[in-house]
């Protein structure tokens, strides 16, 4: 298991290098010069030339790439043009917000999608089934920024039940310990702040989880239904086991591998979706940071974030692969 994990991790390194090369090549298309983004137009040509040399901007592209790669390995993606601080520092500061949002969205999707899918599979053709089918098709087909805007309109604008954006109410004075606001407020015993943070998280998590809910519902229904036709379910029925027990202990458990796969695959979509949802709800995560970086042409920030996003995506997929073995003992890794 350890050997397999190490090998998989090592296998991800060349992929990341090529991914970095792709992004680096794309950067060469960027209009304008990094130097002119940083220093004022009034600087003399000699000053500009000095900076170009100091930054290695006159080196051949391959040399520049190797330098960039060497720095990236140590987590040094340069300094953000806009924020004037190291990219890595910025990312680490805002990463917990995105992870918190993505995990909450996954939780929403699992909590709604799995029961709905199992119920639909247990009674094909029933009202539940149709409800699940309609719900999942709608969930997959609705753009999340639209749902976000509509929910803000209803819950914040009309009913005044939930905040329209941001991560926590101002002036609550919660010290950042882990960066995960829900956790930090609990550690510090601040239930009022926890409630506030939860209210801010509710709408973005619901919106980000909508597409995933639709997909999980569909897949759970299909896998459970397939499992219900297997021989072991027939045996369980013949033994006289109750319907609920067969459904959850036998059919659902065997359908779980497919469901976990889809959660893993969809986590990537969740990361991308977070860029949009974070923008809609002014959620201070790395997704909205990337979009701000693009609008201000903050190239070091963009490259750093694209690479970090991709690395997270690759890592999550690896974790999901490893998780299979825990869920399904039939899969053994050699």
């Amino acid at each position: 298991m350890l050997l397999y994990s190490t090998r998989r991790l090592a296998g991800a390194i060349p992929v990341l290098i090529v991914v970095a090369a792709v992004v680096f090549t794309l950067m060469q298309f960027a209009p304008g010069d990094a130097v002119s983004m940083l220093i004022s137009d009034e600087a003399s040509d000699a000053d500009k030339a000095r900076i170009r040399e100091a930054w290695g901007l006159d080196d051949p592209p391959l040399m520049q790439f190797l330098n960039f790669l060497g720095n990236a390995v140590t987590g040094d993606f340069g300094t953000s043009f806009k924020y004037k601080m190291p990219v890595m520092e910025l990312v680490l500061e805002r990463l917990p917000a995105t992870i918190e949002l993505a995990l909450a969205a996954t939780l929403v999707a699992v909590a709604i999608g799995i029961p709905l899918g199992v119920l639909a599979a247990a009674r094909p053709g029933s009202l539940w089934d149709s409800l699940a089918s309609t719900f999942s098709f709608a969930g997959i087909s609705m753009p999340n920024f639209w749902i976000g805007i509509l929910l803000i309109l209803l819950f914040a604008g009309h009913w005044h039940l939930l905040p329209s954006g941001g991560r926590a109410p101002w002036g609550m004075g919660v010290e950042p310990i882990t960066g995960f606001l829900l956790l930090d407020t609990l550690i510090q015993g601040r239930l009022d702040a926890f409630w506030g943070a939860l209210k801010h998280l509710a709408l973005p998590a619901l919106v980000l989880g909508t597409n995933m809910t639709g997909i999980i519902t569909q897949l759970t229904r299909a896998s459970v239904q397939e499992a219900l036709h297997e021989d072991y379910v027939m045996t369980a029925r013949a033994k006289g086991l109750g319907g609920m027990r067969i459904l959850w202990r036998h059919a659902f458990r065997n359908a779980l591998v497919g469901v976990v796969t889809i959660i893993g695959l969809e986590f990537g979509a969740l990361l991308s979706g977070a860029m949009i949802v974070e923008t809609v709800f002014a959620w201070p995560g790395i997704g909205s940071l990337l979009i701000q970086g693009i609008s201000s042409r903050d190239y070091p920030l963009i490259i750093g974030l694209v690479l970090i996003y991709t690395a997270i995506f690759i890592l999550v997929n690896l974790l999901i692969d490893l998780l299979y073995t825990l869920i399904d003992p039939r899969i053994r890794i050699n």
Partner: protein
Amino acid sequence: MTMTAGNSIPAGQGRWQRFRRSHRHLSGFKAGFGLATVAALVIMGLFSPWLAPHPPNQQDLMVAMMPPDWTGPYVLGTDHVGRDILSRIIYGSRVSLIIALSVALFASVTGVALGVTAGYFGGRIDGAIQKVVEIFWSFPPLMLAIAIVAFVGQGLAIVIIALTAQRWIPYCRVTRAEAMALREREFIMAARTLGASDGFIIRHHILPNVMLSIIVMTSFAMANAIIAESSLSFLGLGVPPAIPTWGGMLSDSRAYISSAWWMALFPGLAIFLTVLGLNLLGDALRNQFDPKLKSH
């Protein structure tokens, strides 16, 4: 099939189940709804100048933020600078249509060419193509598109390239698997024995056999491209803002969310219905063509 008085319904089944039983061909409804959506999109896109009651970019601050009025000149209301929402939705369908068709076309041609080549020839060629797939698949969805648009710039052609960059992969994976399976079938071996060239076999035997999967995937690819394009436009990374797009309209609506709900509702509804239609069409086609899935 219609429900007749003579239908024997087992005891204990509710009215709903009877309804479902009598509408077994719901996939017919799905296909119908899907086809109607595609037809509506094509008609709106082709005939926008005749269908739209107003020019899409005509501004008139005197009528800014007019609520929908079914009997007035602005049926779905106007936006913050007095442009007619309905006309902009009709014109916005053009970008969605062009993007959906182009992305589906380029993605399917690239993906099928690489997939069939990899699956049919196998060996090193397959290995090399699989590596390329792995690299492109390593980017989270939409991330590569965003990186391309962020560095190279905005424009219709760039958005199409950016969205095609990852969309060809599902085509490649599916056709590779199918070509691999077909390669071993008797009729292909027979053709080879008779001296048919690889090119001939691929054109006359492999491609016709993977066509159904391609059609099903194209429906989903178009739905995906429309959502992706509107997401890019919403983020301000799509086509230039002067061209009306559904995503761009939603982006404009954010600042006026509490005062003009119609600015957000209708363009989003256009995206939702179009994507839903394409997804339902894809699902109906899959049910029709894939007997394995039909049983569920």
